[in-house]
Every structure is written in C-alpha cells, then in structure tokens.
C-alpha cells in the first residue's frame, strides 16, 4: 500500500489536470484559502469522531452496544477532509464503518450513540444499529452493511440530483474490500455512461478484514487503472492529512458538480451521437478518488489482528491526522495549545454526553416491531413515528 506520506505526491503526478505549485495558489491548494476557523472546525470534527469512538469501544466492552461494531479511528481525515468540500445539500452514502461519516456530515452525536444503544432516540430508532446510521436532513443516505451494496444506491441519488437539475453531488464511500464486488464495478460503468454527479471515495485502509488489498485485488497496487477502465476521473490523496484530502476533494467536487447527461442532448432531448470515452474521464463528470488511510483498531470489535504487525500500526499512528493538523496549526501560529485543548475537551464532553443521552433514553418499545415495514400499512403493520433526529431538527434532544 502506498504510504500516506507519498500518496499526496503521487496524486499530483497522477492527475494531469492537477494544479501545480507554480500555478494559481488558490486553485492549487484550496486549503491555503481556508480561514483558521474552518481549519479549527476540521480539527474539532476529527477530535469529535476520535473521542466518540473511544466511548463507543468502552460501551461495547460494557455490552451496552451489540452486533458488529466497526471503529473509525485513524480515518477521521478522510470523512472530514472530503466532506469539507461539500455543501449541506450534497449527499453521502457509505458502508457499515459509518460513525465517522455520519458525524462529519453533521449528525448530532447523541442520535448516533443512542442508535447503538438500541434506543428509540437513535437516528434510526434503534432499528438499524452501528452499521445503519441514517440522517435524512443532512442528506446522509445510510450506512450499508452488504459490502458494495451502497454503490448502486449512490447511482440513484446522483441520478436524482441530475434528473431534478440540481447542482449537488453525491459522495459514495467504500472500503477497499468492495473493489471486487460486482455491484461496485457495475456502478462505475453506469456512473460514466450517464455522467452522474458522483464521486466514489475509496477509503483505502489497506485491508478488508484480514486480507491485504493486494491479496484480494488485482492491480491493488495501482488503482488508477480501475478508474480508467470505466472512463472515470482518477485522483488520490493522503488520507491522513486532512488538508491534503480537502484539497483533493475541493478540486474533484468542483469537477463533478453539474455533471450532465452525455447520452442525449438535454436541450433537444434527442440522442445525437454514440458517445465515446477517455481514460482520463470527463469534466464535469464522475470520479474515483483513492484516499490512502488506515484503521488503528481491528476490523470490528473482535479481531485478533494477526495479519499485521504492531510496527505497521505504529508507523501510521506517527502520521496521525489529528496530530498533524495540530502541529500545522501550532507551528503556523494559527492556534494556541489552549484553543486546541478546548476543542478536545468539547469533543470529550459531547461524547460523554452522548453516552448519557443514550443511557437515559427509553428503549425502543416492543410495539415498534411492526412499524416502518410499510408506508401504506395492512394486516399487522402499523405506521411508525418519525425518529427524534427528524422531529427535533438534529438538536440533540
């Protein structure tokens, strides 16, 4: 796997359109234009995910959380950096490692924790659990637990955005294990032929459970070819550097927005020509972004991790995304240690409160068994109430 530190360089070599240092500074590194406030927001968001996940592990060990539970620690910069380039109406969808995705998209941690506790105040009323977070108002279309299963769904969200003539984009997150699932590969092709406003975000942490990417994925060592096979734009970035990730996505999201049909002329409504494709993709059009990242914890809460060494894990922890941004801020004199501690304290507090909220929330009542099966009910089925996250406007209450 490309180490995090070289991947940013690689990304630039790779993308012929990529801004060079000699060019327009703003275009080259959008992150240089970011206000300190935004950077601190990135830091706070990453810290929140980290602290939240620490609480999650604790609660899991106390058997307050059940099922499979996949921890996001180590990958925070991927969620925060990529979503930093979005507006609220842009959508995301992902796999089961979804806590960080939901929080980064704006879900109040209370609903996230309560969901894992199986409480009625959970984002999915306790019906979904750790792997199935949803947040309609923040355009978070779910965590999905069948590997690759979210990719076809992402097509549909992006399709809707294009169909309704909006300028929104969809980010579809997937793990490297999903690279070999037919649904993902079919979706790559379909994104290209309809030229959808869609970015496949590969959270490439190098392993699917115990399988190193190169053991399961041919050309895992050079993923550009997967994009080229389907005529999608390719980019890659150092997913342990939140600003580099942001830069990459600021660029790619801009190049994806307003992707319009190529299979017909929107004005005349007629197909005029048989389309052709380039291995460099199309702008505006869909993209495949390889985010090099790493998970510090095991695959799920029960993973002996014999497939990797402690050294390997430590190597990645040395370039930890949070530490790196802290250093950048301190060294650049953009923030004081106090400010940073305050952010971390805030993250800890929110996470602690989330546990309290979850603990003190009522359990999902048994008679919710037969709600939410059908909108138009019949027989034993009943209409369900909307989850608190919707009715209370994501206020954490």
């Amino acid at each position, binding site marked *: 796997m490309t180490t995090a530190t070289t991947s940013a360089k690689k990304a630039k070599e790779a993308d012929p359109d990529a801004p060079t240092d000699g060019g327009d500074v703003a275009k080259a590194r959008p992150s240089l234009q970011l206000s300190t406030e935004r950077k601190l927001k990135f830091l706070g968001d990453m810290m929140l995910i980290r602290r939240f996940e620490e609480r999650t592990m604790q609660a899991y060990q106390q058997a307050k959380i059940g099922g499979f539970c996949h921890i996001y620690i180590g990958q925070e910069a991927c969620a925060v950096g990529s979503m930093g380039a979005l507006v609220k109406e842009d959508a995301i969808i992902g796999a089961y490692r979804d806590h960080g995705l939901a929080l980064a998209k704006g879900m109040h941690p209370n609903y996230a924790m309560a969901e894992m506790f199986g409480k009625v105040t959970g984002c999915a009323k306790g019906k979904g659990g750790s792997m199935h977070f949803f947040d309609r108002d923040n355009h978070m279309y779910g965590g999905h637990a*069948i590997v690759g299963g979210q990719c076809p*769904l992402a097509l549909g*969200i992006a399709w*809707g955005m294009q169909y*309704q003539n909006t300028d929104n984009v969809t980010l579809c997150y997937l793990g490297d294990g999903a690279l070999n699932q037919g*649904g993902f590969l079919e979706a790559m092709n379909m994104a290209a032929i309809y030229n959808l406003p869609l970015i496949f975000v590969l959270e490439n942490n190098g392993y699917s459970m115990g399988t190193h990417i190169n053991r399961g994925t041919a050309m895992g060592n050079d993923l550009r070819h997967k994009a080229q096979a389907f005529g999608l734009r390719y980019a890659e970035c150092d997913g342990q550097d939140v600003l580099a990730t942001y830069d990459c996505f600021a660029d790619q999201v801009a190049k994806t927005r307003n992707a319009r049909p190529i299979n017909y002329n929107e004005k005349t409504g007629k197909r005029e020509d048989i389309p052709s494709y380039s291995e460099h993709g199309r702008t505006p059009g869909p993209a495949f972004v390889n985010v090099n990242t790493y998970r510090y914890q095991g695959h799920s809460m029960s993973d002996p991790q014999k497939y990797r060494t402690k050294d390997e894990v430590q190597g990645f922890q040395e370039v930890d995304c949070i530490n790196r941004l802290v250093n950048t801020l301190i060294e650049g004199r953009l923030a004081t240690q106090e400010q940073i501690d305050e952010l971390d304290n805030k993250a800890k507090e929110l996470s602690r409160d989330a546990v309290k909220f979850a603990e003190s929330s009522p359990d999902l009542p048994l008679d919710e068994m037969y709600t939410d099966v059908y*909108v138009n009910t*019949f027989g034993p089925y009943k209409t369900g109430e909307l989850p608190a996250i919707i009715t209370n406007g994501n206020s954490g209450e």
Partner: protein
Amino acid sequence: MPTTDRKIQYRDALREAMQEEMRTDDRIFLMGEEVAEYNGAYKVSQGMLDEFGPRRIVDAPISETAFAGLGIGAAMYGLRPIIEFMSWSFCLVAADQIINNAPKMLYMSGGHFGCPIVFRGNNGAGGQLGSTHSWCVESLFSHVPGLKLAVPSTPREAKGLLKTAIREADPVFNLESERMLGMGSRGDKDFSRYLTDPSKPHAYWAPPTFEEDPDFCIPFGVANVIKEGADCTIVTAGRPVHFALEAAEELEKEGIDLEVIDVRTYRPLDIETIARSVRKTNYCVVVDQSWPFASVGSEVAAQVYERCFDDLDNTVARVHNADVPAPYNRALEQEMLPHARKIVEAVRQTTYNA
C-alpha cells in the same frame, strides 16, 4: 366504475398505465434494458421514448444490480422509478438489491427513507426458454416482508394493478407474463358467459380509458371472484387464472360449478375473500405456477385449512408447476405447467367425483 368496450392487449394496458401516470407525475421514469431506443424487447414501452424523451425513458446496460440499485437510490431521493427487468429470470443477479435493500430500507432507517419503486417484467415459463429463463418468482419474493407483489391476469388487471403500483409508497414487484402480452381483451378463449354481465365481456377484461377513469387503480389486497360457483373454490393468480377458467368450462359439462378467485396480489393476500368462498363451497384447489415446496400455494393452502378447518369436506388440493427445472422440449414444458387438465383432475379428486 365505468364500463368499456375496448379492445386492448395486455402489453398495451401495461403501457397505458405507465403513460397515464407519467403524464401527471414528472418524478416517474422508466429504466431497463432496451426500453428506449429499441422500444422494448417485448414492445411494452413502444413509443414511450418518443413521448417522454431520453431523460425519462432510459436504456440501461446489462447491469441488473446497478440499475435496480439506481432505482432504489432514486426512490430514496424522492423520485418514482419504474425498473423493468426484461424477464424476472434476470433479476436474480440483482437479488441483493431488490430483496435486501428495497423492502427493508424504511425499517432499517427507522423511517428516514421509504422506497416507492416498481420492479416489473415477465414472469413464468411457457416459451421453451429452458430452465434459467423460466422463473416464476412469486413464491421466492412474497416471502419477504416490506414489499408488495402483484400478478395481473388480464389487460384490465394489468392496467389497474400497475397504476396502483406506481402510486404506491412501498416497493412493488409486478409480475407480468410474456405468454399473455399479446392476449386481448377477450382472453384467448371466450369465457364471457361466466362473467357478471356476459353481454359485455370487454367490461370485464378491458380497462377503462383515461377519459373514462383517470384513477383506475385496482386496490392491493382485494381478491377478485372472477367466476362465481357453488361446488369448489379455485384460488390462483396471473396466467393460471385462464387455466382455471378452461377447467371450469370442462367441468361444467360434468355439472361441477367452480368458483374462480384471482387473488391479484400475494402480498397483501386477501384471505378473507378466499375463506368466505371455501366456507360456501367446502372444497378448495390452489393453483400456483411456481414450484410446490415453500410456495404461495402452500401458504394459501395452510391459511385455508386454518380458517376453514371445520368447513372443508376434503383436503385442499394443490396444482403447481412440476417440481423440476424447466425443460426446453415443448411437450414436457407444457406438461410441466399447472394446466387445465391437471386442475380438472384435482377438482374431480377433491370433490370425490373421480
């Protein structure tokens, strides 16, 4: 409900349902293989590209997983997709999307995202296509909570059930029949004397036009007593409805008067109408075009026993597709189906007339 004297084929009725709904609701689009430029592999969508343009009538590559999933995602987004499988036999490569995602999204998300989508296509054997191309999926899929499943048996049903499906807020599986696409508004045979008003067979077999009834939606979960009779209840749906009417004709000669019930939708199932009928006739034959084991036929039988245990004068007979993969050979394939002769024999046995 207005009556009508139209001559209209099953395939045209399906198209009419889609057209009428698409004209009033821009959120609806149709996607599938060869639905647009080719005008439909079976001409169901003929002319629709011309009318609605390529934004709404969309050719898909042979990627059932991707386009079924696209439909589900689009439904979550707020659109109203109609996804055509050229044949339901081809949906198996997309099984995860259609039975793991579509019917469970509302539940799994705790109410965030419903999934108002229609999957439709040809269901059933009869064209010598061999074993992989001859699936009857009613039993496989009606097993799964969260979806609704309709099996229209005539042009009238085809239009009325599909319009309902398109307006539904829940995912609907619409199981059409290649063997019936060309069936007209009289059926292949003239069964008019069985109909409520035998002088107007079309009123029974043909749907009203948009002008006659813009909201001609046949509600789900309401079975249709297509022929009243005193001696034995036949419960079926889809193409075998016609086999049952043939059997009724045959048995009439022997003085046996069948009541034929078209359940229309297996999920929801209108067991009340069926039970009422069995309480009257005291005999029941279930006719199901899918395989016997763990089927809609076993379900209907089990529910009839449960509700009519003391009313039944004999066991419920079950006529199914033979419990084998579909053979290519024409004679074997025909014999495999739950055809009229098998129904006749089952009725005779059940009613002790054998």
